[in-house]
């Protein structure tokens, strides 16, 4: 169904915009992943006109109003830190460098040029420049507003992505788009100062063009767009690196179809790509400043990380802990990852996710592998694309967990926002898996149940978790 004919499309765009505005408004300043660090880099670029290097951080005092704003909104208390000490001038303004003030949270979070790509910050610095006379809190809220535009582009990409793959089934664009709009963590991360929102948008556009390439045919414009979006996404944040093996997988599948390879040839290629991606991701992390060296072309001869046995029982405990943390942070670890949804909810979500994973497996076997030979749901173009999308989810997960494997520690979380660039294929497969669980006689209730569950969870998070912690 054409989006122009579907009023639900317009309502979803409106919901995305309004929800974006709500999240910007209810979350206090600074209470988002690394938001103070991103603001400081933008401020240095746009207002101090300095490249945010280590030397600049060491010699530039932070904004005089920053400490007071932290106290006004109880940021340290909500995040379970003691307010850090500082030296004040005669007017009571702190005389302290940002890296010394913000150090209690994470030294690795500071945005330093040379080991952090600054595309996002350079863009926002253009807006930050004229704002330097305004109060710091006013500046921050203004700087958050462009994230709504980025969010809307992501939602548009999601709708068209699903509509391209399933052009005659309007439930797919609604389901995929609704998943993004009503996923609280995605809204939270996408409406604050950080690079994840822009990265997710660029990767979503990549997936849209990839879908159009597979479904509607290859063209030079589409290929150039894919290469361009891939490049800019990786330069924005290394969490987009999984697009490299994804693109290789796409080439293999396209060639297999064009050259009419037997099934085991592309299977061997895909398996090889997967087996190479895992150690490559770990090595890139160890030698390239956590992956950021790819964007800044800085590589270290020193290998970061342990020489430990990656398959030891101790290592497996680290991996399990990382998976549990990633799952929690996907569904609800807000602010500085201290505002958590109740663990009882997480257990229910684990059960639901497990059930849907079984559904995904069933879908794969029935319609992609077509083990019974009676698939009538998908044509060959859809099957090829869905195979690539499934591979992209695997590659994204590899990239997200590579730091944990590389360092054999849970220091890197990993936070699920590193996985958000793969939300489009993930949400599509999540819905496909869910559809497998609904009996045929109730198939008309699939979308209403899906939406009811999403809206109920989201409303519960806002009313029972966010508002009580932030305002009570």
């Amino acid at each position, binding site marked *: 169904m054409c989006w122009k004919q579907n009023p639900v499309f317009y*309502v979803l765009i409106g919901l995305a915009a*309004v929800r974006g505005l709500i999240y910007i*408004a*209810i979350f206090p300043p600074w209470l988002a992943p690394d938001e103070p660090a991103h603001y400081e880099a933008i401020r240095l670029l746009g207002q101090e006109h300095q490249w945010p290097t280590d030397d600049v951080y060491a010699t530039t005092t932070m904004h005089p109003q920053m400490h007071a704003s932290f106290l006004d909104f109880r940021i340290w*208390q909500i995040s*379970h830190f003691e307010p850090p000490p500082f030296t004040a001038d005669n007017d009571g303004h702190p005389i302290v460098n940002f890296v010394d003030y913000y150090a209690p949270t994470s030294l690795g979070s500071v945005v330093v040029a040379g080991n952090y790509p600054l595309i996002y910050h350079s863009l926002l610095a253009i807006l930050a420049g004229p704002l330097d006379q305004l109060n710091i809190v*006013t500046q921050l809220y203004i700087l958050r507003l462009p994230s709504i535009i980025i969010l809307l582009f992501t939602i548009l990409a999601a709708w068209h992505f699903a509509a391209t793959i399933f052009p005659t089934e309007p*439930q797919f664009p*609604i389901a995929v788009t609704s998943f993004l709009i009503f996923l609280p963590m995605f809204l939270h991360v996408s409406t604050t100062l950080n690079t994840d929102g822009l990265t997710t948008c660029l990767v979503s556009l990549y997936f849209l063009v990839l879908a159009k390439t597979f479904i509607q045919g290859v063209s030079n414009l589409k290929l150039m767009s894919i290469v361009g979006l891939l490049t800019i996404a990786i330069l924005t944040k290394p969490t987009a690196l999984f697009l490299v093996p994804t693109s290789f997988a796409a080439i293999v599948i396209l060639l297999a179809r064009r050259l009419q390879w037997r099934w085991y040839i592309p299977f061997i290629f895909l398996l090889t790509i997967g087996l190479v991606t895992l150690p490559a991701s770990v090595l890139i992390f160890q030698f390239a400043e956590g992956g950021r060296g790819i964007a800044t072309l800085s590589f270290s001869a020193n290998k970061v990380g342990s020489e430990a046995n990656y398959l030891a029982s101790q290592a497996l405990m680290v991996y399990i802990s990382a998976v549990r943390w990633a799952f929690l942070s996907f569904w609800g670890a807000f602010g500085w990852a201290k505002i958590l949804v109740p663990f009882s909810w997480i257990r229910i979500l684990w059960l639901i996710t497990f059930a849907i994973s079984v559904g995904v497996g069933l879908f794969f076997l029935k319609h992609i592998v077509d083990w019974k030979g009676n698939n009538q749901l998908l044509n060959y173009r859809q099957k090829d694309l869905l195979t690539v999308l499934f591979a992209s989810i695997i590659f994204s997960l590899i990239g997200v967990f590579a730091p944990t494997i590389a360092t054999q520690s849970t220091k890197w979380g990993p936070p699920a926002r590193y996985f958000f660039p793969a939300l489009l294929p993930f949400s599509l497969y999540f819905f496909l898996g869910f559809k497998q669980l609904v009996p045929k006689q109730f198939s008309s209730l699939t979308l209403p149940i899906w939406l009811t569950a999403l809206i109920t969870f989201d409303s519960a998070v806002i009313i029972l978790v966010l508002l009580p912690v932030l305002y*009570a």
Partner: protein
Amino acid sequence: MLKSKRLRLIILGGIGAGVLIAMANGRISLIQNSSYRQFFAFATLPLLGDAKVTQTFTAEYPGLYRIDVYFVNREGGNGKLVFRLKETCKSRSDITVQVVNEVDIVDNEFHPFMFAPIQDSRGRKYCIVLETVKLNQDNELAVYVSRSDVYMPGAAEYQKSQYLEAVNRQQPFTATHFVWLPIIQNGGMRPFDIGFQLYYAGSVLPMATALLAQFSAHKPGVFGTPWFYVIIFTVYIVLLIIFVWLIFDSNISD
């Protein structure tokens, strides 16, 4: 069945009526936590003899009806704790007085002090006063305190036991355990707070008004006006209703 417009209108009407009735008769409960356990892992103030601890605070919502205080009570002595709530720490009169047996105070837990709801508590300052009755230097009852000023709208003060000071001048005081007093660190008084939680249960409209004021506090421009939140949440709910209505109205799911 849910495609029937009449049925959907009935459901919506029922929900709307329920909301209006809840707003007219209902209450909203909130907990306000002023402290975090990470701050209080080791620092305690002993309630020995006639020692007294006070903590000022500001109630941010109407309907204050309960205050929880975080205690250490390792040995469970046979004395009594007196909890007073006053308008100021120097007031002669008490809003409420409660006497609790020390044995009823659980170690490393918040102990609740409940009283009749104060409907007009919003924006008012109050003072918590904690004292013990029985003079006993082996008393292990103490309150957890912060190492720095974690609760900005108020502060705690500690008055050591005058009785025990006099006793100790006559004989050496041997501590049964080590107590770290943050207020004398670095040779000077530093602001600190005790660990406490405030509970409110006010009527819907006054609570909602107070909540809107909290949403807009310290925020710039339109984000600093309560009406913005009323409008944005109303628009959101309307869009949500339209969205759900369209989903059930169309043949999308078939």
